[in-house]
């Protein structure tokens, strides 16, 4: 997306200026030599660490910290968009995804903005998982995966030949990629990496007492202060290109934890008919405006299982770009279901944004499950699959834990 073009380049994005003739003559002119497939200005920004342009529409992507999730989302998270994680019931795995996102930011040298009403951001950063470096991971993987040697090997399968057509999931480290790293959830990130990184923290209980001259508006106090904080950081550090003193060529990764929970002063999770039901949706809208005009990407975890008003969940989904729902099996009857015995929960890709594109984007694979295997968080394919494609007849088959997808 040309958030890049909007920042600071002003009218430079209109390479095709044909002001005089806009009636019958098309005014498209070939732009100067620029990176193919990307909008103007992106060629300058491809050099930002930890980003890459999307192969489909040239948008700038960042990694979510989980390469399997990146693949499911079509390459990564687009800069300028929101990734909404619908929390699982006890917030075990969603906080892990939250930390992966932040850890990825530290590894790539991005600036972080961590906002929480429950934990001090400094504590959250201390608990980030350590990155898995290539020489360590080889021996960890040999015992788990029997046939994942080279991801691109085209071994012809004789018996299970139908499986060859299914997409392979990446679950091993890709050694030469600088986009997307693997993390060891049992170890902590080294202190020196955290200290080197640049981060801003917003801990709501600390800001409760501060008095800002705010005009009355229908946002609850916590959301209003958070928006102000985010906007200050974006402006001061120059992520939107409007600050003449600061020329920023880095990504701001914003992480907001437990948005919508009562700790933020919002009662949307407590009752069905709350007074300030527009607070959360208004916050998301203004946040989207801030993100679209700056070089930032945001992850939000939200306890949607607590929101009793279904209409609000629909509105929140419409206002977010990418929505991923986590459903853990802890305490549910699925824990004893033999189909799910190796997994810790299900992951639902509810929405993928359709930016700069007509094509309707929906995740190809539907029944996905995740598990936290000693150290690694992996996502795998499970369940029934129905496929209709233009060169195949209608077919359906049951795939039960296909071992080759590892």
């Amino acid at each position, binding site marked *: 997306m040309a958030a890049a073009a909007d920042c600071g380049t002003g009218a430079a994005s209109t390479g095709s200026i044909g002001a005089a003739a806009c009636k019958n003559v098309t005014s498209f002119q070939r732009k100067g030599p620029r990176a193919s497939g990307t909008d103007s200005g992106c060629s300058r920004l491809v050099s930002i660490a930890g980003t890459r342009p999307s192969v489909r529409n040239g948008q700038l992507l960042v990694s979510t910290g989980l390469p399997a999730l990146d693949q499911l989302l079509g390459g990564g998270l687009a800069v300028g968009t929101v990734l909404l994680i619908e929390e699982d019931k006890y917030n075990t795995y969603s906080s892990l995804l939250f930390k992966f996102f932040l850890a990825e930011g530290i590894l790539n040298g991005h600036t972080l903005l961590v906002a929480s009403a429950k934990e001090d951001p400094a504590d959250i950063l201390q608990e980030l998982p350590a990155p898995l470096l290539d020489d360590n991971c080889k021996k960890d993987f040999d015992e788990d995966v029997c046939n994942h040697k080279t991801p691109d090997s085209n071994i012809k399968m004789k018996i299970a030949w139908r499986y060859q057509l299914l997409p392979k999931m990446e679950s091993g480290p890709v050694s030469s990629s600088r986009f997307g790293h693997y993390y060891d959830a049992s170890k902590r990130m080294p202190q020196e990496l955290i200290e080197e990184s640049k981060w801003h923290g917003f801990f709501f209980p600390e800001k409760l007492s501060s008095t800002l001259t705010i005009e009355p508006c229908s946002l609850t106090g916590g959301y209003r202060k958070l928006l102000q904080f985010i906007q200050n950081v974006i402006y001061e550090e120059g992520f939107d290109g409007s600050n003449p003193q600061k020329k920023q060529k880095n990504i701001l990764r914003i992480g907001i934890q437990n948005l919508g929970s009562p700790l933020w002063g919002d009662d949307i999770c407590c009752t069905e008919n709350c007074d300030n039901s*527009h607070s959360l949706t208004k916050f998301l*809208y203004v946040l989207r405006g801030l993100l679209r005009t700056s070089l930032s990407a945001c992850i939000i975890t939200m306890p949607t299982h607590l929101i009793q008003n279904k209409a609000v969940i629909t509105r929140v989904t419409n*206002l977010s770009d990418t929505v991923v729902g986590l459903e853990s099996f802890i305490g549910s009857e699925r824990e004893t279901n033999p189909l799910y015995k190796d997994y810790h929960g299900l992951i639902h890709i509810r929405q993928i944004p359709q930016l700069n594109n007509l094509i309707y984007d929906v995740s190809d694979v539907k029944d996905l499950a995740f598990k936290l295997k000693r150290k690694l968080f992996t996502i795998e394919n499970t369940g029934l699959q129905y496929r209709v494609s233009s060169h195949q007849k209608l077919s359906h088959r049951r795939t039960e834990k296909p071992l080759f997808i590892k």
Partner: protein
Amino acid sequence: MFPELNNLLNTAPDRAEQGKLTLLCDAKTDGSFLVHHFLSFYLKANCKVCFVALVQSFSHYNIVGRKLGVSLTAARECGQLVFLEGLKSSVDVFFRAQAEPHPLQFLREANVGNLQPLYEFVREALKPMEDGQAAWRYPVLLVDDLSVLLSLGLGAVAVLDFMHYCRVAVCWEQKGNIVALVHDSGDAEDEENDILLNGLSHQSHLILRAEGLATGFCRDVHGQLRILWRTPSQPAAQRDRSLTYQYKIQDKSVSFFAKGMSPAVL
């Protein structure tokens, strides 16, 4: 614009009807391809377009518009297109007090507001030129989308009032057209949205409803489009004409086919 959709609607840029309200609605799928269609359709038809884009940025529509054969930047520069970028303006109006009333003034208000500043903006944008010479054929108002206004704190009645005022100003006074997108929340029990959708359905001349397939996602058939022609002022005894097609969205166009006749299945 999609030539196949023009054929289905039996219309073309040079002979479109005037004074009509078209309602776009989507249920369980994304109907924004219809917005792109009408935007490029009316720009090619040489109409003056006021686009209230509340959910995506200008560059998004521009890039898709280029695939469909129109350049929004050129149209904006020569005055054919008045583009209100909701996301960018909302940041401006929310963080800085504005001197004059801003179209999105309701974002700053604590109580349930109304859309009068937005209506004034639309009327100002689409008013006929004083010198009498008509550079453009007729004015068109395009709104993407109205459901987000409900999320921003406005009531369904305020949005219906806004649409009513716009219809008087655009459709009746200037014989222009209005196209608006409303999401159908389905079984999510969003009462305000249902009120808005039902209210607008009764006022519109053409309803295009994009629905996801009842059986779920399919790679070759992205959804079903229901077209309903209505005559709001006629008595209800007259039957409204309705057609249903299935569609598949491709990179630069959308192909329509009769139900069950997808090339993948035949």
